[in-house]
């Protein structure tokens, strides 16, 4: 090892002998010196933030209305102390409130101007407003400083108008430099300081180390390897009893010394400054040193390999920059195509109908197979179209991500039904759900059939044709024929849904037994043959069966063990009650007793995203977030997963009435598999257009094969801003997102490492074979 340690030592010696190292260390020192006087101090919140003004126009309307009243009230008092110019604006806002839904931040500047008034509080006007003791004592004081006055008035305003002003915090942070406090507060509470500081550190590191640091290091170290391999030096080195590949590798590692010294100095300095000045001692900051070193190593591997082959530092720099730019372009192109073309077209739901199939893509477009499309060949044609406009197609999947849009087929009436979530808007209106219906005979044309009284999460149709809607606190049967709305009512219901309630309650018959409200995380499924419901609610399992007059009765319930209290998807078929777990396992319960009778592990380290069971209860299929399908024959206890085509690329699963498995893969291809014979019995393949071909066979493979150094910045972000573990109160979605993020980050790490190994391996092979 002695010769190789000598090479590494020489690299350090060279790094220290280079003036540029001292220059960069000096610049880093200056930067640390410059930020050292910064501090974050808590102070009173004296301004209303945009997100705190829930409904500024509504508040304006209330003030204007109160101005015509003689009754003392905060609204009337505040109106009286408004300046004329602000009154005009408030009046304009009040008019706008009639035609505009509430949007956060309205008239914020005007409300903030109001806060500075010393006469803001008037005991008679506030007599009906409930104030806590502290605020009450502040209200009567007249010796408050300007900041204290604004902070008090802010709280008084929120206390008087809780529907319009909702304070997030009473304290904010102020940035100070050399003790001089900047006027504008940072809208975070003292508790959020650590997160803010860590986010700023991440951004600083990404710019200073992830970009400039790497760039400067590449420029400075590019000549090291070419110089080593120059004729006069390499002959002397190779005459020594050393191995060529190890000589190259140690020279490469030695070249990293420059970055190591700089990164260590910057990160250790930042750690100290952030710890001493902001009291945020994050030891993970020091872990960023090897991460940024690793980031540099990826680019430097390209530089060093180029240098060993062509022995030219300029060429090394140029090719490294080309490599950098190529990765950037490739990632951008792939992400753009993925977001604009692939993801919107990707099938996410399969809805078998009597003689065919309907599908739903991630843009929430419902489609049916057509042998001739407007494009010419066979493909998917949209039906059940939403004519209401809305966001651009590529943005629909984000805009409606939480809409819970899952259409179901009603064989009895040959129609499709779906729920559409309606957000509550303005004047405290609560959210609700609208039932959409499309009949085949009307070419599946979408129409609104009614608005449920409360938000619903799922819609089912049993074999008898009963339409059941399930929410956290209600189970309705949708009859859809009770009250015939006039055309005007329908128009109003369409336009003002969510803003005002236009529900035809008689179309919704309550079926829920007297139970406590279910809580999220929540999942429900129906056995369409019996109409029984399976419910998972925050660690509790329930089965509800149909009783008298078609109402539901609680037939079984149980709490999961505290240490095993996780669940995701539920499926019920006959006596079988399935529950997916966070761990990726699937529990099988007896539906009558809710005793766990079997536990399956379909996937290692993957979460189940979809699961369903064939109507006869024989086959169960689950889809992982890794796009792998698990097909299991319960009757013969046989894993049939290998027979499922398209493993690793499957996006949706379903069983049709013939107990055949339907899978969607390759964006929009659907295949029907007979699980008994293990053969494909039908295929709906619209083919790939040129963009999808480019994505599937060029962009994506290149992206997978090539390294992803940019992802290392994401690792730093993850490292510094995420808590150690999911806290107890974090939701399952947060936990799953965290696990997915970890998985993706590790995947990026291994991809980068693989690239590093391959390129350095090639360089070693080249060096060992070459004549010098």
């Amino acid at each position, binding site marked *: 090892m*002695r010769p190789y340690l000598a090479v590494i030592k020489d690299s350090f010696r060279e790094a220290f002998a280079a003036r540029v190292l001292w220059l960069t260390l000096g610049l880093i020192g200056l930067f640390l010196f410059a930020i050292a006087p910064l501090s974050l101090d808590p102070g009173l919140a004296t301004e209303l933030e945009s997100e705190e003004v829930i409904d500024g126009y509504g508040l304006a309307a209330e003030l204007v209305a109160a101005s015509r009243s003689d009754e003392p009230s905060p609204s009337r008092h505040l109106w009286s102390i408004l300046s004329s110019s602000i009154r005009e604006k408030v009046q304009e806002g009040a008019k706008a409130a009639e035609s505009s839904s509430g949007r956060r931040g309205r008239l914020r500047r005007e409300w903030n101007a109001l806060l500075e008034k010393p006469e803001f509080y008037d005991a008679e006007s506030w007599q009906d407003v409930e104030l806590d003791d502290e605020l009450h004592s502040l209200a009567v004081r007249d010796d408050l400083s300007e900041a204290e006055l604004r902070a008090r008035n802010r709280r008084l305003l929120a206390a008087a108008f809780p529907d319009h002003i909702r304070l997030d915090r009473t304290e904010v942070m102020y940035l100070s430099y050399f003790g001089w406090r900047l006027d504008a507060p940072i809208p975070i509470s003292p508790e959020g300081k650590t997160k803010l500081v860590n986010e700023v550190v991440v951004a600083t590191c990404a710019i200073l180390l992830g970009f400039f640091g790497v760039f400067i290091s590449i420029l400075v170290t590019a000549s090291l390897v070419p110089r080593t391999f120059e004729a*006069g030096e390499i002959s*002397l080195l*190779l005459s020594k009893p050393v191995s060529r590949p190890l000589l190259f590798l140690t020279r490469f590692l030695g070249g990293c010394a420059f970055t190591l010294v700089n990164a260590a100095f910057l990160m250790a300095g930042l750690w100290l400054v952030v710890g001493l000045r902001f009291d945020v001692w994050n030891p993970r900051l020091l872990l960023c040193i090897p991460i940024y070193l690793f980031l540099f190593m990826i680019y430097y591997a390209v530089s060093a390999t180029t240098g060993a082959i062509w022995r030219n530092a300029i060429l090394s720099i140029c090719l490294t920059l080309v490599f950098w730019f190529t990765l950037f372009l490739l990632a951008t192109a792939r992400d753009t195509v993925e977001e604009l073309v692939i993801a919107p077209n990707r099938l996410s739901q399969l809805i078998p109908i009597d003689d065919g199939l309907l599908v739903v893509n991630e843009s929430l477009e419902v489609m049916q197979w057509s042998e001739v499309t407007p494009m010419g060949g066979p493909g998917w044609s949209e039906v059940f179209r939403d004519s209401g406009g809305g966001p651009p197609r590529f943005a629909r999947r984000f805009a409606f991500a939480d809409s819970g849009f899952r259409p179901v087929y009603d064989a009895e009436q040959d129609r499709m039904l779906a729920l559409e979530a309606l957000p509550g808007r303005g004047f405290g209106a609560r959210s609700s759900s609208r039932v959409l219906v499309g009949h085949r005979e009307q070419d599946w044309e979408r129409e609104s059939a009614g608005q449920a009284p409360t938000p619903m999460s799922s819609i089912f149709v049993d074999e008898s044709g009963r339409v059941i809607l399930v929410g956290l606190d209600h189970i309705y049967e949708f009859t859809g024929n009770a009250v015939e709305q006039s055309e005007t009512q329908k128009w109003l219901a369409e336009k003002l849904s969510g803003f005002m309630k236009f529900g035809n309650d008689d179309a919704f018959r309550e079926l829920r037994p007297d139970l406590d409200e279910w809580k999220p995380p929540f999942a429900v499924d129906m056995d369409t043959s019996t109409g029984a419901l399976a419910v998972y609610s925050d660690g509790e399992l329930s089965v509800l069966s149909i009783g008298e007059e078609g109402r539901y009765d609680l037939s079984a319930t149980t709490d999961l063990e505290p240490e095993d209290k996780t669940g995701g998807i539920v499926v019920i078929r006959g006596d079988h009650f399935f529950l997916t777990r966070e761990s990726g396992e699937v529990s099988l319960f007896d539906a009558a007793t809710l005793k766990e009778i079997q536990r399956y592990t379909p996937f290692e380290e993957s979460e189940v995203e979809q699961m369903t069971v064939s109507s006869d209860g024989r086959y169960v299929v689950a889809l992982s977030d890794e796009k792998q399908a698990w097909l299991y024959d319960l009757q013969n206890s046989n894993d049939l997963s290998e027979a499922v085509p398209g493993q690793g690329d499957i996006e949706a699963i379903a069983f049709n009435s013939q107990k055949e498995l339907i899978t969607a893969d390759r964006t929009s291809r659907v295949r029907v598999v007979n699980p008994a014979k293990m053969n494909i019995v039908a295929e709906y393949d619209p083919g790939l257009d040129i963009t999808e071909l480019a994505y599937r066979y060029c962009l994506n493979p290149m992206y997978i094969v090539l390294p992803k150094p940019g992802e290392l910045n994401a690792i730093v972000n993850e490292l510094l801003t995420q808590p150690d573990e999911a806290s107890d109160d974090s939701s399952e979605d947060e936990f799953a997102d965290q696990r997915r993020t970890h998985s993706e980050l590790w995947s990026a790490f291994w991809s980068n490492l693989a690239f590093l190994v391959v390129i350095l391996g090639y360089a070693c092979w080249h060096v060992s074979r070459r004549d010098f």
Partner: protein
Amino acid sequence: MSSTSVIQVDNLRKTFREGFFRRRDIQALKGVSFDVPRGSIFGLLGPNGAGKTTLIKVLLGIVRRSSGNATVFGFTAGHRKARQQIGYLPENHRIPRHLTGHSALEYYGCLSGMSVRVIKQKREELLDTVGLAEWGTTSVSKYSKGMLQRLGLAQAMLHEPELIVLDEPTDGVDPVGRTEIRAVLKGLQQQGTTIFLNSHLLQEVELTCDRVAIMAKGQVKTVADVTELTKPGADLRLRLIGAREEVTQALTSVGINYPQMISDPDGSINVRVTTGDQGHVDRIVDALRARSITIRSLEPTRNSLEEAFLGLVRESTG
């Protein structure tokens, strides 16, 4: 081949491939064979492009041979164990400029497997040997070319190798320095070190080496002891006093036509003649004396290495 040979080369060939689109082969070594005896100072001579540096690089494993055999200390040329026993000073070597004399010796010594402690013990004496005693702590960026050569020689000697390969070791070194380096090499030889010297300075090789190989166009033209190449020749150099016509007639009478004659200011005539056997020399003397020509001196001429070298090279270039 002798078992006492340090280097044994047998039918060694090396072909380089050049060109990116139109590849062409260049034969740098065309079946080279020779031995280097242990303890000798072996010189390698040849015009530019003869393949000398390629041969050295093959022996050190810096360049891979195409065919044939080459062994150093019984190991295949380039073997790590062979390299452990070799000190090498390449032509136009480059010692990193951030090093000092001391740190350069430490660096190269460690590369040869030495410990820093041992290097520190030896480096002062070694720098003194090569005339750099005062320069150990000075950055090599301030060294002259001759000083860099001396430092290069020092690093080659540092680990006390059994074989030292020197490629143009006196390049850039002043005459005094060359004399010192020659003395160092002679001293090493006395300690049993074998020295393989590649130099285009024929006089230096003649003064330093015991044995030489002369290469041209990738082939070894001859391998011989220096004394053998510089043995007395067939020419006689005469210094005569007498009339020029008499001298001419005397020499013509013994079969020497148109001899080279140069008159000195002191009246003597310098003549160089090519002779056959000793009888011919006797007849020349008799003929001169018969004409009362005084023979002030008579001596056989000696071939220089340069003459031998040029003779062989011209012969090969045809």
